[in-house]
C-alpha cells in the first residue's frame, strides 16, 4: 500500500467523520447556550456561541479510529512495520489517548465570545470556555488556577510598565498530568519519581505564578545605530528594561541561584534596598547601544523572585512593593480597569506607550518595504497610534475559563481587519523580497 494513500485517505475520512453530525441521537440534547451566553455581553458588535459537545464527541471517535489504524498489525501499515519509526510511533500513539483524556479538552461544552462598546472608546471583549464539570477534571481546568484571587503581583509592577503578562501556572498540575500519561502509557512508570532531586526541589519551591514585565522610560532614549538595522539614520526610541517574575515558597530557588553564581565567573554584588538584598550580576562586556541599560540583577521580594535586566528596574520594583509608583496609580491603567474586578488568575497589560513603541519597531520594516505597499502599511500604523492600551484578565473557576479584555478599540472588528491587512502586506512584502533574492529564478519566480 502506498504510504501517502495510507495516510492521506484516513485524513480525509477523518475530516468527513468529524463533520458528520450526531444526527442519530434519539432526541435533541440540551445545549450549553444559556450557561455560556449568560457570561457574555449582549447588544454588542460580536456575540457568538458554539456548542462544542458534538464536535468533542466526534473528535473522540476520530482519535480512536486513527489510533487503531496507526497501531494495527496490518502488514501494509507503513508506520507500525517500519523498524526505525515503528517503536517511536507506537510510543507516541500509546501516549496520545491518555494525554487527550487527561487534558480536559473533552469537557469543553461550549465556547462563546462577545464584544461591547461600554463607552465610545472603551470596548469590553469576553471569551468564555464553558466546562462540563460532570465529565471530571483535566489539565486545562487546573493549570491556570481553580479560583480567581487578588493580583498581588500588581504591588510589584512599576507605574512605567509598558507590557505585563502574569498568570497562575500550576506546574504541579502539569507534572501530575505527565505522570498520569506516563503511567498509562508505560504501565506504571512515573516521570517525576525518577527526576533528579534538584528538579524536585525547584518544583516544590515554585508557588504557581509566573510572569514577565517590560518598562519603558520616555525620559531616556536608546539609540540603535542605522547600520544595525539597515537604515540610513539611527533610530531613537524609549529605553526599555524587562523582568521575569516567579512566585516561590521561601527563598530556596534564590539560594540555588546564589550558589550557582558564586561558583561562576564573577560573584554578584549585593546591595540592600528597603530591606531587600539586590544581587547585581556584573557583565563581562558593555552593551554597544547608547541608552540601553543592561545591568542584570535578581532578588527575592516577599513571595516573589525577580530576575531583572537592569538594576534600576529592580529598584523600581522594590519601591513599588513599598507603595511608591505602582501600576495601579497609572492613569492609563486606571482608565482601562475602571469598574473591572481585578480578582483573576492572570493579567496581561499593554500601555499606550508600548503601542507607540512597537509602532516604531514596525516602522523599521517600512524602510525595506516596496513603495506600492508603503501607503497601505501607513494606514495600519496610523490606526495603531489611536490605540490607548489594553488589559486582559483570565479567570478560571468551576464553570470554565473567562478571558475578559478592555481596550480602546474593537479588537474583533476594525482592529482585526487592520491586523489581517497588515499580515497580508507583510506577506506581500516577503514574497517580493524572496522573488528579488533570486532564490526562485529557476522556478520562474512569483510573477
Amino acid at each position, binding site marked *: 500500500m502506498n504510504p501517502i494513500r495510507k495516510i492521506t485517505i484516513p485524513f480525509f475520512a477523518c475530516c468527513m467523520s468529524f463533520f458528520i453530525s450526531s444526527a442519530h441521537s434519539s432526541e435533541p440534547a440540551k445545549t450549553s447556550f444559556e450557561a455560556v451566553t449568560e457570561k457574555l455581553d449582549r447588544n454588542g*458588535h460580536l456575540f457568538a456561541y458554539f456548542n462544542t459537545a458534538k464536535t468533542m464527541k466526534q473528535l473522540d471517535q476520530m482519535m480512536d479510529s486513527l489510533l487503531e489504524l496507526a497501531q494495527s498489525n496490518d502488514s501494509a501499515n507503513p508506520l507500525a512495520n517500519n523498524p526505525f519509526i515503528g517503536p517511536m510511533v507506537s510510543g507516541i500513539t500509546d501516549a496520545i489517548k491518555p494525554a487527550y483524556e487527561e487534558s480536559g479538552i473533552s469537557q469543553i461544552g461550549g465556547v462563546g465570545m462577545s464584544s461591547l462598546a461600554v463607552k465610545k472608546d472603551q470596548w469590553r471583549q469576553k471569551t468564555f470556555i464553558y466546562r462540563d464539570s460532570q465529565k471530571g477534571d483535566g489539565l486545562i481546568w487546573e493549570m491556570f488556577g481553580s479560583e480567581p484571587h487578588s493580583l498581588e503581583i500588581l504591588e510589584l509592577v512599576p507605574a512605567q510598565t509598558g507590557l505585563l503578562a502574569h498568570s497562575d501556572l500550576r506546574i504541579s498540575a502539569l507534572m501530575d498530568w505527565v505522570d498520569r500519561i506516563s503511567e498509562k502509557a508505560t504501565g506504571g512508570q512515573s516521570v517525576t519519581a525518577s527526576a533528579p532531586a534538584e528538579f524536585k526541589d525547584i518544583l516544590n519551591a515554585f508557588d504557581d505564578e509566573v510572569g514577565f514585565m517590560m518598562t519603558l522610560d520616555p525620559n531616556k532614549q536608546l539609540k540603535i545605530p542605522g547600520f544595525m538595522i539597515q537604515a540610513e539614520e539611527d533610530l531613537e526610541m524609549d529605553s526599555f528594561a524587562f523582568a521575569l517574575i516567579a512566585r516561590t515558597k521561601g527563598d530556596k530557588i534564590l539560594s540555588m541561584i546564589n550558589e550557582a553564581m558564586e561558583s561562576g565567573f564573577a560573584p554578584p554584588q549585593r546591595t540592600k534596598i528597603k530591606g531587600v538584598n539586590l544581587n547585581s550580576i556584573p557583565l563581562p562586556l558593555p552593551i554597544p547601544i547608547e541608552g540601553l541599560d543592561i545591568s542584570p540583577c535578581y532578588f527575592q521580594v516577599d513571595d516573589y523572585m525577580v530576575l531583572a535586566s537592569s538594576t534600576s528596574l529592580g529598584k523600581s520594583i522594590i519601591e513599588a512593593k513599598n507603595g511608591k509608583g505602582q501600576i495601579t496609580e497609572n492613569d492609563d491603567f486606571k482608565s482601562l480597569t475602571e469598574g473591572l474586578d481585578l480578582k483573576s488568575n492572570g493579567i496581561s497589560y499593554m500601555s499606550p506607550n508600548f503601542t507607540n513603541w512597537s509602532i516604531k519597531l514596525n516602522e523599521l520594516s517600512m524602510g525595506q518595504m516596496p513603495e506600492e505597499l508603503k501607503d497601505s502599511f501607513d494606514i495600519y500604523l496610523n490606526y495603531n497610534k489611536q490605540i490607548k492600551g489594553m488589559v486582559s484578565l483570565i479567570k478560571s473557576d468551576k464553570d470554565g475559563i473567562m478571558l475578559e479584555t478592555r481596550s480602546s478599540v474593537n479588537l474583533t472588528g*476594525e482592529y482585526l481587519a487592520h491586523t489581517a491587512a497588515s499580515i497580508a502586506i507583510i506577506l506581500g512584502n516577503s514574497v517580493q523580497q524572496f522573488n528579488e533574492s533570486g532564490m526562485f529564478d529557476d522556478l520562474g519566480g512569483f510573477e
Partner: protein
Amino acid sequence: MKKETILTLFITGIAVAFTGCSDSSEKQIESTSKNKSPQSAVPNSFAEVTSKLDTNGDVFVYYSTEDVIATIEKYAETAGAQAVKSIEAGPMEDAMMESGMNIGKAMYEQSGIKDISGMGMSSIELESGMFRNKMVIHHDPEKSNGKLWSLLGSEPHEIDMLKFLPEDTALAFSHEINLKALLDWLPELIKAAGNPMLKQQFDQSIEMANAEMDLTDLVTSFDNEIGMFVTLDASQKMQLPPPAGEIPLLGFALMAKVKDDKISDLLFSILENTTGPEIEKKTVSGIEMLVVNEPVPMPIPFAPAVFRLGKFLVVANTEDLAKQIVATQNGSKKNLSSTEEFQRLAKDLELKANHFFFASEQVGSTMSPILKQAMNAGGLPEGFLGLDSNDSYNLQTLGVIRMDTDSIMVENHSQNGLFNSVMMQAGVIPASVGAGMILPALADARERAQSISSEQ
C-alpha cells in the same frame, strides 16, 4: 360569581397564552437573557439581526460588519491605486486599467455591500435529526438602493417551480435574478469607467445584439426565475463509469420563467433550423414540444425535449421526463410537495421566498456506495470511522432565501447542523471523493513511471 369566573378564565387564558409564547423556539435573545447587558455605546444592528435568529441551539453568531467593511475599503482603495501606479504599461493599457478600476469602484459603490451593517447565523436541532439553520445579512432599510438588494429578487413569493417537480426529484434549485435590472446597470458602470471609447464599444455591442436577436426584448421577456432539478428513478437503473457503477435512472431539466413566447420562439426556431440529430415536433397532453429523436451518446440518457409549460420554458433530458413534468404540473401525477420527506422538511418553513433549494435523502443513498467504493479503493478498512452507515452521507435539506426589506435571509431545514451542512456539501465529500479517485490514479501513474524508468 359569574363575573369572577369569566375574569379568572380570561386572566388564566392570557397567562397560558404568554406561557405558551415563552416556550416557542422563536425566542428572541433578550427574552432568554438572565443578565441585562448595557446597550452598546456605538450603534449596531444587534437587535434587528438577532430577532431573526434562533437561540438555544448549537450555533448563534452576530457580527457587526460596518467598521470592518469601512476598513477593508480603505486598504482596497489604497492598494488598488498603488497597484495601477506600479505597473509599467503603455497609454492604452493605462487607460484600460483606469477604466477597470473605475468600474470596480462603481460596482462596489452601487452594489450595496457597504450598506451591510451586520450578519448573523444560528443552528438549532428542532427534533431528532432535523436542524433549522439560518443566516441573515442585514442592511438599513433606508439604504436599499444597492443592486444587491434588488438584483436577486425584491419580495418573497410562492415558488412556482414546486408545481413542476416530480415526486422522485432528488435535487432541485430555483433562483431569482433580475436580468433587466442587470442589463440596465451595465451602461451605468460603463459610464462610470470614464472612457468614451469603451462606452462606444459597449453601445455598438448592444446595438448588434439587438439587431441580431432583439437582446433587450429577450431579456424583458425573461421573468427573473431560473431553475434546475434532477430526478432519480429507483425503479430503473443505469450504469455510470467506475467507480460510480449502477445508480437509479437519472433525469434532469432546466427551467426558465418567461413573460411571453419570445424566448421559446427563438429557441424553437434555432432547434428547427439546426442540422444534426433529427428533431420532431410532438404534442404531449396538449403541450407542444420539440423532441430530439436520436439519443446523444452520453453516460446519462440525453435526447432532450423543449417545451413551454405555463409560465416556464422547460428543457428536459428525455421525452419521458418531459411527460412526467407535464403530468405533475396538471396534477395527474404526484409532485414533490406531496412526499413525506418534503413535508417533514417543510414543516414550519415559510416557502414564500426568492430562491429555493432541495436535496433528498436519495442523493446521499446514491452517493454512499460510490463514496464507499472510492474509499475502499484507497485501502481503508470496512466500517472505518463508522462511515459504512448510509445515514452518514445523508444530505437531505430544504432551504429558501428571502429578500426582505432590511435583509437577505437564508433559512434551511436539514438533517445536519449549519457547520456540518456547509462542510459536508461544499468541502469534505468532494475532497474525500476526489482523494479516493485521484490517489489510486496517482499511485498507478507513479508505478507506471517507475517501470518505464527502470526499463530505460
